[in-house]
């Protein structure tokens, strides 16, 4: 075992995963379960039943104080001040030059903002937030909370069996939540924060639970016939099929939101106001003036292209890069995300990827690769 591994932190459910036969790997500074029975089986289980993911490495933060949403808007392009209580928004943490420091979920709980940020970036995010937010806004890192995700077409059926009560008698049940809504709940007296959201493209829930109760909750979920544990391996193949970018791979500080194909996160009112970090650089690319763009790729044949493989033109010159690549268990073919020049970003465009000296033919594809199945609120 290397020194590096000895420095890894343990998550509240570390031993619980080992007890289930997980293979643990270092990830974001923690020992994390990468797989249990196998990536393919876990992936397909999540697409057909309900998968339980431990994502406790992610940062759970609270911003409290008058003007928290306004202050957060200075460093994000989301319309957070208009976010109603109980609603969630996906947004981007932007550096002063508009580069993407992280992607995150922001929930208006009604009395504060609850943020979920990436595990690998959480300490940098906290430092940046502390530096950028005024003293009137208090940042609280919820280090004593675990985060579980239950994802898949049977996630709602499963969660309904647990007997989770609304925090107040007349408030909604967990299954009353629509996609991107959240609320406080009680289960056997344990307070839970439940969001209808996830990172797989399936319907599902993300559950914040006090660390000391995480094992009780995870074990209760595991007793349900619909539920099996899912590791990081399948989490990655699921999010890739869903077309969801991974921070540090498909986006990063050297990339701006428009070229990262995240223009949907630039809300209309915020584009008009133009008062967020790096707005000038970010908006100069909007809507279609970036030189390159993140796209999906279908890969010909059976051999996956991987992160770091180069996109080449007819002369063999590098014109882009693959940022995520793998085999799609649902489609039974390799798929990828890549940055390509804007004039090659149209769906159906033929692209050549060079990997280990071999050229592999690809075609620009619409994302998501596999249709999302979110439980969206019906249009009024």
């Amino acid at each position, binding site marked *: 075992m290397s020194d590096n591994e000895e420095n890894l932190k343990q998550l509240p459910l570390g031993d619980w995963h080992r007890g289930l036969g997980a293979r643990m790997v270092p990830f974001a500074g923690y020992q994390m379960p990468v797989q249990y029975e196998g*990536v393919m*089986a876990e992936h397909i289980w999540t697409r057909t039943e309900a998968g339980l993911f431990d994502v406790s490495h992610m940062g759970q933060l609270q911003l409290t104080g008058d003007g928290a949403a306004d202050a957060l808007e200075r460093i994000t392009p989301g319309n957070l001040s208009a976010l109603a209580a109980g609603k969630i928004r996906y947004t981007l943490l932007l550096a002063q030059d508009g580069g993407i420091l992280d992607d995150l979920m922001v929930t208006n709980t009604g009395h504060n903002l609850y943020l979920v940020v990436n595990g690998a970036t959480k300490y940098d995010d906290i430092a940046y937030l502390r530096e950028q937010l005024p003293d009137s806004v208090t940042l609280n890192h919820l280090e004593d909370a675990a985060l579980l995700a239950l994802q898949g077409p049977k996630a709602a059926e499963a969660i309904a069996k647990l007997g989770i009560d609304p925090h107040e008698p007349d408030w909604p049940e967990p299954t009353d939540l629509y996609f991107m809504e959240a609320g406080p709940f009680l289960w056997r007296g344990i307070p839970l924060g439940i969001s209808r959201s996830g990172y797989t493209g399936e319907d599902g829930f993300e559950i914040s639970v006090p660390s000391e109760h995480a094992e009780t909750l995870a074990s209760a979920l595991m007793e349900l016939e619909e539920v099996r544990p899912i590791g990081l*391996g399948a989490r*990655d193949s699921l999010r890739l099929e869903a077309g969801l970018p991974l921070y540090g791979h498909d986006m990063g500080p050297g990339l701006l939101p428009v070229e990262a194909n995240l223009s949907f996160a630039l809300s209309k009112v915020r584009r008009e106001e133009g008062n967020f970090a790096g707005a000038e650089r970010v908006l100069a690319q909007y809507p279609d003036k970036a030189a390159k763009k993140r796209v999906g790729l279908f890969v010909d044949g*059976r*051999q*996956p292209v991987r992160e770091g493989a180069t996109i080449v033109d007819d002369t063999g010159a590098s014109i882009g890069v693959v940022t995520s690549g793998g*085999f799609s*268990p649902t489609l039974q073919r390799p798929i990828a995300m890549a940055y390509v020049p804007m004039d090659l970003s149209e769906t159906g465009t033929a692209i050549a990827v060079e990997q*280990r000296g071999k050229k592999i033919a690809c075609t620009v594809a619409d994302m998501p690769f596999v249709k999302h199945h979110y439980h969206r609120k019906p249009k009024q």
Partner: protein
Amino acid sequence: MSRYYTDEHEWVDVEGDTATVGITDYAQEQLGDIVFVEVPDVGTELGQGDDAAVVESVKAASDVYAAVSGEVIEVNEMLEDEPGLVNSSAEEDGWFFRLTLADKDELDDLMDEKAYKAFVDGL
């Protein structure tokens, strides 16, 4: 026929001057679901330790090195349509390629079954 093993988790069956190469059951278990195997072209001259093949799982690509030197004389065509053979039968039907041994002395660098088992148990 004698079987040899490498610390890169490959097995080598030697019959006369011909060696058949694959990855061990331990290796396939570690790699997980295998979705593609890139085998060398017939006629390729491999030096000991050269990149010989690539095994692709859902998540990652892994190199397979030539355990011994020689010229590739046959590859397992079955793997093209059925890469999962490496998972289901790593040490038999899931073989990768055959080569003509260039230097039998290289086999002295390899482990026998007992030594390999001890090696894996120590991991």
